[in-house]
């Protein structure tokens, strides 16, 4: 990895102008695994002076700055009151504390990595991403957005509500990417079902959710609907068949848990 300039942005506008200045300019978030990717950059743009590392709340939502570290997110009192802390369950399963002190929530989302635990863990909830220049879209819209979004992620808004959540990362050891990950939640009496790392990036199962939210009581059937709707693939970590088997079990177990 080679970088010509390390640029400490003085404002979001300043950072945005710098980002526009060259296709080889990039925002630096946590910086993890960056050198493994082996790219060269003209300027790396540092947002650390912009106060984006705070977690705050309003009556309706929790607002997480994009530069909040994964560790601060999981340790946050504010987040712990949100569905009994469920949106942070996934973060706790990411590598070790010495990693999560660096990795940011914003960085985890912007990359839309197929192996992301953070995205799977957040997707059951009503999450809106706030960008600069002013633009908002739901997390799900962003995941489905075609191409690279030419904007800076400023904050993640998580809508408050009643309910609870479940998250499972199937892995070989603690320092591993997920073989598959599953997040299930009951948000204001409405079921949400998400499966990620299939090995594609997380997605909600609308068929399972529709069945459950129209009175469907058979969780095993809901799990079947989820694996029918979502696509799964082989890769070096697991076969498609095994991923499907795991998703079925853990969607069912998750639903059992959140329905209690």
């Amino acid at each position, binding site marked *: 990895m080679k970088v010509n300039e390390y640029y400490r942005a003085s404002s979001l506008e300043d950072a945005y102008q710098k980002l526009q200045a060259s296709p080889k300019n990039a925002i630096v978030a946590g910086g993890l695994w960056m050198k493994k990717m082996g790219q060269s950059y003209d300027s790396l743009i540092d947002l650390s002076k912009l106060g984006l590392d705070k977690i705050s709340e309003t009556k309706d939502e929790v607002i997480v700055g994009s530069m909040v570290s994964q560790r601060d997110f999981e340790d946050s009192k504010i987040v712990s009151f949100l569905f009994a802390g469920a949106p942070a369950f996934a973060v706790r399963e990411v590598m070790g504390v010495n990693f999560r002190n660096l990795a940011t929530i914003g960085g985890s989302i912007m990359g839309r990595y197929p192996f992301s635990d953070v995205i799977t863990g957040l997707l059951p909830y009503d999450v809106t991403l706030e960008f600069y220049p002013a633009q908002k879209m739901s997390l799900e819209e962003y995941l489905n957005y075609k191409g690279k979004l030419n904007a800076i992620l400023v904050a993640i808004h998580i809508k408050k509500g009643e309910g609870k959540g479940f998250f499972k990362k*199937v892995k*070989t050891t603690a*320092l*591993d990417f997920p073989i598959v990950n599953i997040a299930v939640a009951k948000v204001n009496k409405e079921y949400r079902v998400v499966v990620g790392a299939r090995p594609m990036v997380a997605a909600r199962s609308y068929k399972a959710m529709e069945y459950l939210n129209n009175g469907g009581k058979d969780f095993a059937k809901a799990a079947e609907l989820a694996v029918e709707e979502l696509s799964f693939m082989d890769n070096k970590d697991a076969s498609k068949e095994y991923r499907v*088997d795991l998703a079925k079990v853990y969607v069912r177990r998750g639903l059992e848990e959140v329905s209690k």
Partner: protein
Amino acid sequence: MAIDKKNMKVVNNKTHSIDGTALMQGKGKYTDDLAEQGSLVIKILRSPHAFAHIKSIDVSEAQKLNGVALVLTYKDVPHVSFSRAGQGYPEPSPHDKFILDEYVRYVGDEVAMVAAIDERVAEDALKLIKVEYEVLEPVLDFETAYENKSVIHPEDGIKEMFPIGFDPKKNVAASYEMQVGDVEKELAKSDVVVDETFYSQAQAHAMLETHSSNARLDIHNRLVIYSSTQTPFHMRRIMATTLGLPVSKIRFIKPRVGGGFGGKQAFHGEMFCALTTLKTGRPSKLVYTREEVFGASYTRHPMRIRMRVGAMKDGRINAIDCRSLSDTGAYGEHSLTVFMIVGSKVLPLYNKVDAVRYGGLVVYTNHVPAGAYRGYGAIQGNYALESTIDILAEKLGMDPKVLREKNSMKEKETSPIFEIMGEGTKGTAMIMESCKLPYCIKRGAELIDWNKNWPRVKVSDTKVRGYGMAIAMQGSGIPFMDMGSCSIKLNDGGSYNVTVGATDIGQGSDTLIAQIVAEELQTSVDNILVYSSDTDLTPFDCGAYASSTTYISGNAAWRAAIKMRERLIKEAAEYLGEKPENVEFDGKIFTSKDKTVSLYDLSVQWLYNKNLHQASVTESYFGHVSPPPFMAAYAEVEVDLETGEYEVLNYVTVTDCGTTINPMLARGQVEGGIVQGLGMACYEDVKYDKKGNLLSNSFLSYHIPTHKEIHKLTSEFADSYEPTGPFGAKSVGEIGIDTPPAVICNAIYNATGVRVHTLPITPEKILKGLKELKK
């Protein structure tokens, strides 16, 4: 004569590592910490192809790059075949490697070398080297390697040092056959015969310090190399021969080493550092990246092992027939020795058979080369044999513990295999003077509550706990081949300098040596100043491998201490005007009747006042036997029947390694071995793509156990005394790693009815098996 352990004050007593505090405080100097400021940084251009011939190579652009000091290709280095294995002389491994060659034989093989003022310039220079390859058809499945039309070593100039079955035209690095009795006849007579085949993977050592070396010239123009090595003396010899230098021109120094486990027995970057410094006159260094450690150093030999075991209805095992196929990858380092241990340190466990046979081939493939790795051969063989014994027990309707008790090695017994099989050569007959295996089996069963729990306990509709066991043995050095030595020098004031060739690679041998010497000289460990592994300053030692350090180097240190004690008493007797047999020495004071003199006073006088001389001794030791440590191991695993996921809840071991010189370090060796063995059994999967690229080449894709996987280890030692060992000790470095694959395989079977024949035992394989059982 056995020494009562109760009288020992230092040996067998809790003693902290002599370097532990400094290492925790960051004061330990490892190889790269000692590179000269301003060293040229060496980087290696590595092959992108699994098998290719270099048609042309153009380094002119790289040489022109500002900051590049040296570029070397096969055209620029001595064309002398050697083995990187880091073994004694003559090596039982084929000389099939050149420093650089016109053939590349695996993805990651060395193509060229660049030395530059810094890492970035060196990396830029690598990109400027233009190579035209003739891509050849690789052999990527070791079961098709034998007599494959692709010959991996077609070149001239390669050789075996003595007959090892080397047949490169057939892709055979080594082969071996032995038989005691008539196996086919005994199998035909048996009431029950089981026939099972197992596959084990190319485990990675994954030591935390990557392979590192650096070089400079001293004021006498001699080459001084710091290396993260297990074998500094072998390195010096092999380098001298290969580069055509006299041994006197080379000095190897081993500083602190960040783990080895066999991986650092071999050469990695040392030849390139030496060539760079010799050719440029400038200091140089080479530190492997983590990816290079995974993809371009060494692995364990993957194997296919077929076990046929025959027994009578009453549980008497008649015959064992074992055939192996071993994949040595692109080069044949340790090909024969690893292969032989599958037989020699596994099959004697069941020594009451009427016939036993072992044999097969070690083949070349275009994979990352395999080499020495802790427990080599034994862990592969143990997985196959100890899984098969459980299968046999079930067929016989017996408790596998009872079957093992009935057939396994006992004290004062032997096996004909010891005499037939050594490491690459004939072996040495020996009687088991110490073997507490029956106790280990019994005690381990108590600790896991075997009689109550075996084979399984149901926890819920989806969770079940399975219990499995295995037994194992190792050796203690290689008889008549491994030698260690030790010098002791008395200082004024009564402290002792102890210099040993023994190679501390983190296992704590410096501490152990200090304890042995302190015990014999009746002093404290802090009075013993150990310096080790410097080919200029310390006496010879073969190095840290083959579970030799405690037994071989420890015996050398013990002998030196005994001799020093005799010397001191003799000289004190002269001073006191008495006969030596009338003088007592308590470590500080020499006493004879009413006369006394202190070691303190004598040591000062000898250097400054009277009878001026330096009191010093040197002793060496080699084994006449290789007394095996033994172990019984048990595990409790909990399996999720819906997903195949499982956790190892408790791993119980009882070990007979003779006297534990340092009980805490011995436990560290056993438990560290177990966790590495659990890694191989459960998590550490090796994956290549279809073109021979290693996919599991980082800690993110190759999973060693972490704190979240290890729940409980219960480790005990048997009360045992080996008469030939120092203070009754045998080795303990490797035995811990041997059992987990078989134990976990047996426990998973007992929990689920699924027998996994291919390592690692992944949840996916278990679930697949469970689904097949339902059909």
